[in-house]
């Protein structure tokens, strides 16, 4: 059985306007999305600003009220707060935030920050708690001296590692990482990603890795989904997405990433322009008349694409 099952998730925000501030329309932040998460795997959620990827992450963890659809965890419906509370859901599902400074309370010591989930979910004695916190800090490469410091005394990369330590303190089964390295410099981004991978192999955690950086997602994730306008345009394994993209939007996204291979740059530029041209001319075929992404069609065992029906062909 899957660890998490998301069925037709929808999150809409009302747009109020007009005379009495009545709800006139909705922002379809997430507009009908279904997928499953297996234990120990890493899933990537890729999209541009406003594509709804962050909203999906926040609704799975319970920070966002869902409009409709279902989220099942280990077979339990966890769509409402009451249901989550009943099974201590957040003990098993944790989150790493993008902005490491804002996600750590500036008035708390590192010790208290990491111990917070422990105090809520595990009834540990003081000695056990301290032992556990030390162990966690050690896991992310920080030392004993750091226990009683405040967040501002650390660099961005270190703070993000503290965020990782907090997220894994209760041995969760799923960690949602929302742009965990986007705010970091390249030289420290690798530190955080490496620790995340190590921890995964050690504790068999599933990651939902949300990012706009296709290079990082490619590195971290076995399977991934590309989001556009609140829906999935393509869903598949790393190989499916990067080597056999079928949706016009995926192709455009992939072509837009600047590559560090300087020798190929003219060719790549040319390729990008071609894809862009195709996107401009054929775009309408891939979206319905309201600009909504078409329903997903299965093209192989692992690969689904939001294609017009006449284009579906096996691989």
């Amino acid at each position: 059985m899957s660890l998490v099952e998301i069925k037709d998730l929808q999150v809409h925000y009302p747009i109020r306007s007009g005379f009495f501030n009545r709800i006139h329309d909705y922002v379809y932040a997430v507009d009908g999305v279904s997928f499953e998460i297996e234990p120990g795997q890493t899933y990537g959620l890729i999209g541009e600003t406003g594509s709804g990827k962050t909203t999906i992450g926040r609704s799975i963890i319970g920070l966002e009220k869902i409009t409709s659809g279902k989220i099942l965890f280990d077979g339990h419906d966890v769509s409402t707060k009451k249901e989550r509370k009943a099974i201590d859901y957040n003990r098993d599902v944790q989150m790493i935030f993008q902005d490491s400074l804002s996600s750590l309370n500036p008035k708390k010591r590192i010790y208290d920050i990491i111990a917070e989930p422990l105090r809520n979910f595990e009834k540990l004695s003081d000695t056990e708690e301290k032992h556990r916190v030390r162990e966690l800090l050690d896991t992310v490469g920080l030392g004993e001296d750091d226990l009683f410091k405040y967040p501002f005394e650390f660099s961005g990369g270190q703070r993000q590692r503290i965020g990782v330590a907090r997220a894994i303190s209760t041995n969760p089964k799923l960690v949602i990482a929302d742009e965990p390295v986007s705010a970091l410099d390249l030289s420290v981004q690798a530190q955080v990603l490496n620790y995340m991978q190590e921890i995964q192999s050690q504790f068999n955690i599933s990651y939902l890795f949300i990012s706009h950086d296709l290079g990082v997602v490619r590195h971290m994730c076995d399977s991934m989904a590309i989001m556009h306008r609140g829906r999935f345009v393509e869903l598949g394994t790393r190989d499916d997405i990067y080597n056999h993209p079928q949706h016009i939007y995926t192709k455009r996204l992939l072509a837009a990433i600047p590559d560090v291979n300087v020798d190929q740059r003219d060719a790549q530029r040319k390729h990008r322009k071609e894809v862009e041209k195709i996107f401009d001319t054929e775009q309408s075929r891939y979206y319905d008349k309201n600009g909504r992404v078409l329903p997903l069609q299965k093209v192989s065992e692992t690969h689904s694409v939001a294609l017009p029906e006449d284009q579906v062909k096996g691989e």
Partner: protein
Amino acid sequence: MWKTILRRVVIMIPQIIILSLLVFILAKFMPGDPFTGSITPQTDASQLHALKVQAGLYDPWYTQYIHWVVNMFHGNFGTSYQFKEPVMAVIGGRAINTLWLSLFTVILTYLIAIPLGLLAGRYEDTNLDRGIMFFNYVTYAIPLFVFLVIGLWLFGYVLGWFPSGGSVSLSANGFWGNTWSRLYHMILPGVLTALLSTTSTVQYLRSEIVDQKHQDMVATARAKGVPERKVFSRHILRNSLLPIAAFMGYSITGLLGGSVFVEQIFTYPGMGQLFLNSISNRDFSVITALVMIYGILALFGTLLSDIIMSVVDPRIRIK
């Protein structure tokens, strides 16, 4: 934009209703009734009772309330027991005095506050700025009435530069003589109140300018080759001053609150003084009318501010 304004006006209606209810309830708790003043030892109890019935004083409260509101809409706030005149007539003359003094004070306030705020913001962290900020701290800390009393004592009595009370000299004649006398009476209370009312404007303007100076927008302007002076006047100043324009409406509430003190201390015959006077004489019909008027004026002040804001800021205007 019209929709925003209209909606803002519509929101005001329940506020006015609640305000009137509140004032009505306060009025009900006030001792006495419109006939208390006319009671003499000769008054016949049954006659009085009949009068009260006729005036609806024994009706259920909501009937009385509606009656009161309807009368109010017709500008009928009842009769002042103290002056034996319709309340509106009593208030009328005073209202004009208060209006002049307030207008004079508002203009002075901004005339003082805007340059100070601009200078402090532009020359941030210089001695000029520190001086202005010290002035700002003093005006923030000193209670208005103490400042007024000391000012009156110093300039009205010790130095004798200004009259110590009233709104116009009895000996003034002719249009110009009269106008000058009125202005002369307003100078001391107006200047003193204005000095103390500059606090929030100076503070806001200064921090707004300091804030704007560090925006990328200003760097863009410089990068365009706009000379420093123009960067200041075309970008920083404009963007900082527009919100100030919108604050004018809010300042009405503060001024009205202050008018009670100013008019009392300078024995200036305005609405504030009338209010205190009526309180001492238990002239409740005048009191209710004044509270209602002050409340409605404050409501219109906030409305005005919101409208100015939506007119000057395109981010709100377009919606």
